[in-house]
């Protein structure tokens, strides 16, 4: 039994979630607390991955990430290797694909924090950054956790976009979902069964944890 695809899947989910959390908080903060008309366009763009097929997104990403593309060539100069067909490439693709999964809970979380908590923190002499860390984020814990768990779970199940950007390279881009696809193509049903069952249970547990946390946190606040 080859567990390399699982390791790769978890690694991909970890990096995707971490990167999205780091860039998602400032972006969510901006979208929630400013009222420019252009924000509607930004929100629409962020939510595009929810409605367009992964192949469409994958195709465009392939164009810009390949060694001759805008970002790909830059990356190539910097690190001397290509983004496409490498782990870094599928992380980039996965981050873009999961954007709405992280941003949407964060934006609604930011909006749910009462405005006067933020204002009172400022009047108590705290900077906006300290207010964010000590007041805003702790009072939207559930939204942050939802964003993290959903992004993680969503990345576990990623298939189309990973295949388009990464292909199926052993130990580099061959994540569980792709390994299952390969196994089925080779009529290796026993491997497909095991992989599928593990992924199914793991995903179920992840989603379940969101609901358990939800209940615990909401009873905490009461």
């Amino acid at each position: 039994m080859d567990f390399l695809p699982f390791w790769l899947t978890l690694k991909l989910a970890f990096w995707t979630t971490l990167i999205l959390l780091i860039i998602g908080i400032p972006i969510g903060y901006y979208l929630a607390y400013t009222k420019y008309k252009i924000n509607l366009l930004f929100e629409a763009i962020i939510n595009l991955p929810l409605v367009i097929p992964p192949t469409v997104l994958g195709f465009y990403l392939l164009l810009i990430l390949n060694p001759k593309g805008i970002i790909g060539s830059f990356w190539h100069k910097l690190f001397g290797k290509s983004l496409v067909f490498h782990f870094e490439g599928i992380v980039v693709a996965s981050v873009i694909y999961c954007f709405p999964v992280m941003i949407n809970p964060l934006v609604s979380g930011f909006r749910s924090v009462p405005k006067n908590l933020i204002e009172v923190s400022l009047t108590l002499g705290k900077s906006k950054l300290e207010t964010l860390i000590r007041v805003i984020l702790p009072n939207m814990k559930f939204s942050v956790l939802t964003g993290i768990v959903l992004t993680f779970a969503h990345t576990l199940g990623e298939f189309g976009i990973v295949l388009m950007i990464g292909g199926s390279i052993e130990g580099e881009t061959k994540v569980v979902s792709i390994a299952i696809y390969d196994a089925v193509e080779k009529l290796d049903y026993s491997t497909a069964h095991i992989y599928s069952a593990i992924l199914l249970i793991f995903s179920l547990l992840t989603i379940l944890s969101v609901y358990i946390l939800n209940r615990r946190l909401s009873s905490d606040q009461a």
Partner: protein
Amino acid sequence: MIRLNLRKKLRGARGDFDLKVSLEIEKGEFLVIFGPSGSGKTTLLRMLAGLETPDEGYLEIEGKVWIDTNRKINLPPQKREIGFVFQDYALFPNMTVFENIAYGMKKKDSKRIRELLRIAGLEKLSETKPATLSGGQKQRVALLRALAREPRLLLLDEPFSALDPQTAAPLREEVKKLQKQEGITTIMVSHHEEDVLKLADRIVHLNEGKVLFQGKPEEFFYMRKTQSPVKSSLHGLLLEKIFNHDHYEITLALKTEILTLKINQTLGEKLKVGDKIYLSIKDFEFLEKNES
């Protein structure tokens, strides 16, 4: 000493109006800004706190300029050294009472926090989260949090309006005591007369953005009484008028009850069923008839 001269366009229920206020406030003074809702008083307070920007104006406190639109100065709230108490307290739900109070202190001083908690009778609730506190307790914590940072200016936005009268009354006394003890210049916004009577050294009466009166609270109430005696809130509709020997018996429908009164003949003849009648509460003397 605080000097301010601020102007801001506001959107009211009856169209736009200009909030235009020019004031001087002594150090240690307790000023109550009194007026109906929508008069611009909360906006004025928020401009003092830096939570709202005036269209133009100037604000100086103890020689330090906080707002000067000509020189494009508008200090953000976190640089103003104020204490702001919100109507709905705005306690941090993720922190205990102790942590709430400590949050705004320039240097965390546990001894002072315990002392403040003791004065307010809250020492047992130090480790409690705000969600389980009563309204009065929450308001005390909010006030202590604002005081703990030793602000140059204490700003109170309708701090008692969410409390029932029995809770508000002793709290008013405490506020006044603490304010005098600490000598903090305080500006409070309110539409309750009790606040003016019990707390104010001086009152500013605001309506639709204009200062209608400023001075001592006694002068204010006296002036209001002599200027418009019919503004009594007790009025009703004349339902019935019966002549009885030398006088009339009239029946009035007040807001929630029916009232029967005896009045003299000359007055009675002037009234007809359906008239709106105003009464002065103090001595039930008939004052004026209002044609309807």
